[in-house]
């Protein structure tokens, strides 16, 4: 069996009375691609934030490659070799595409090597024509692609993508699918998405969140045809 890259035990996050993440036990293997789905407010992003150190969970434990990282800060977790894209765009708008990606690369490589890695990613993501443009000038789809580039450039072994295809054109989504498949050859990926077609095109295993809990975890086909899941998505009582 493949190595486990991420485990959580009883992960719980409370905001006052709201239990955004409720006793979540989660496991992910090396080079696995997992989709998280669930209605708005189901706790997907909260789960991400607790695991990546952006929020400190109220209870529970997080392990990455067997190391406990429960109370670590985001930079410590990222330094392990973990790429993180948050739900809201998180980039340096007044810096160029090259500089954005270079800064990500520099964390793991020396300056010269970072230059090479950056060029490489820019070519792979077809960003060459806009490499010297400031990010603030780019279209939404291009910025999402750049953010994916800076997540990928450090050769991570675990990647978190919170809604990478949100608000993108069909063409951009297709390109994103290709990039994620390519990435998945070397790293485990967790993707949060609402776009079912996109999920079908990338995922095998899907975890469904509902009211902070894991409702179901199974192959994408079985999840999609499950009546409970359908009810949850349509807003009926589960």
């Amino acid at each position, binding site marked *: 069996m493949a190595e486990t890259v991420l485990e959580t035990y009883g992960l719980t996050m409370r905001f006052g009375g709201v239990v955004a993440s409720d006793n979540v036990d989660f496991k992910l293997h090396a080079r696995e691609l997992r989709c998280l789905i669930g209605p708005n407010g189901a706790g997907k992003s909260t789960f991400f934030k607790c695991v990546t150190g952006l929020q400190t969970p109220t209870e529970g434990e997080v392990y990455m490659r067997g190391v406990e990282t429960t109370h670590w800060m*985001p*930079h410590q977790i*990222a330094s392990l070799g973990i790429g993180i894209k*948050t739900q809201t765009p*998180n*980039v340096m*708008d007044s*810096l160029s595409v090259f500089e954005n990606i270079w800064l990500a690369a520099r964390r793991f490589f020396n300056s010269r090597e970072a230059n090479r890695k950056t060029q490489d990613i820019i070519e792979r993501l077809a960003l060459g024509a806009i490499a010297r*443009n400031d990010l603030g*000038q780019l279209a939404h789809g291009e910025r999402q692609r750049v953010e994916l580039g800076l997540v990928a450039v450090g050769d991570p072994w675990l990647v978190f993508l919170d809604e990478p295809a949100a608000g993108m054109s069909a063409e951009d989504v297709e390109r994103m699918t290709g990039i994620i498949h390519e990435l998945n050859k070397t790293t485990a990926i967790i993707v949060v998405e609402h776009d079912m077609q996109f999920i079908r095109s990338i995922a095998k295993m899907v975890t469904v969140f509902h009211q902070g809990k894991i409702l179901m975890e199974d192959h994408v086909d079985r999840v999609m045809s499950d009546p409970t899941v359908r009810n949850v998505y349509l807003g009926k009582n589960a």
Partner: protein
Amino acid sequence: MQGSLSKDAIIVIIVTAILIWIMPFIISTYTLTVLIIYGMLGLSLGLIWGFGGILCFGQAAFFGLGAYTYAIAAINFGESTIPMVLAVLVPAVFAALLGAMMFYGRLTDVYLGVITLVVTLILFKFINSTAGPQYVIGNARLGGFNGIPGFQTLNIPGRPDDYIWGDSYFYVCAILLAVVFFLVSALLRSSFGRIAVGIRENETRMSLMGYDVRARKTVLFAAGAAIAGLAGALFANWGEIVTPSLFSLGQSAEIIIWCIVGGLGTRLGPIIGAAGLAYLKFLLGQQMLIDNTLITGLILVLFVLFLPKGIVPAISNMWKVSFGRRQLGRIHQQRRIRHRGRANG
């Protein structure tokens, strides 16, 4: 930034040489010296605020600390070399401790401003209250509001009797400013500097990339304080007395205004802002008609309204518009037109 570090060095040397030669024909070297010192002080805040995004309301604290450290050490050592070094180190260490407390405590920008302001006030009050004979460090009496006069001024290293003063002191200050300017340029070209700019732009993103934002901000903050401390020591030598007014909030506010007027996010802007406004203040000081602070305030308001990015960015933009176009390829031009709407917004 484009070009290379060696090109930077050549430009700095040439420009410095020309200015050292020409400026004394226009302004006395005595006045020029203090303009240079203020320029260095402006640069110290320009570095941490303009490139690191750390707005410090207490840059004068480091300036004053440098000046006092120099004065106290000079009295005790009877020569100037070790005191100069201490005047850089003491503010840097002080800033590193203060910065670590603020950045590791995850204070927001507002509280950072408040704390640096309060620290300046405390230092000011404290130094002011040290008039009594019990406040001595070694042979040096702190002197309270009277300040510390009569300390050993700059001498040639190893020869305490060979003072550097007058025109020579002007040359020393000018060259030191050029050296500091070059070091700042080198810092900004280095990975450390580029990462600092990244942190200025988006702290969360940088920490999600694996950078320890707290440590890096602390280091940058200390570097800024070191430069302010050096400026303070040079100021002590220039004035031959140090007084608590060095720590005043008015002084801190002025440094911030220099940076805004000259142009944040540039290396030259804060220097030009500082020297320009300080010279204006000097000219205004020779007349009695209009109040000085009123003019400074008015200038700040006018700049914020009409030239919010400051002098240097405005000039370099004008330069690009009038001379830069021919060098750009056609594709570039088209792209620029496409983006003009947003760029101007």
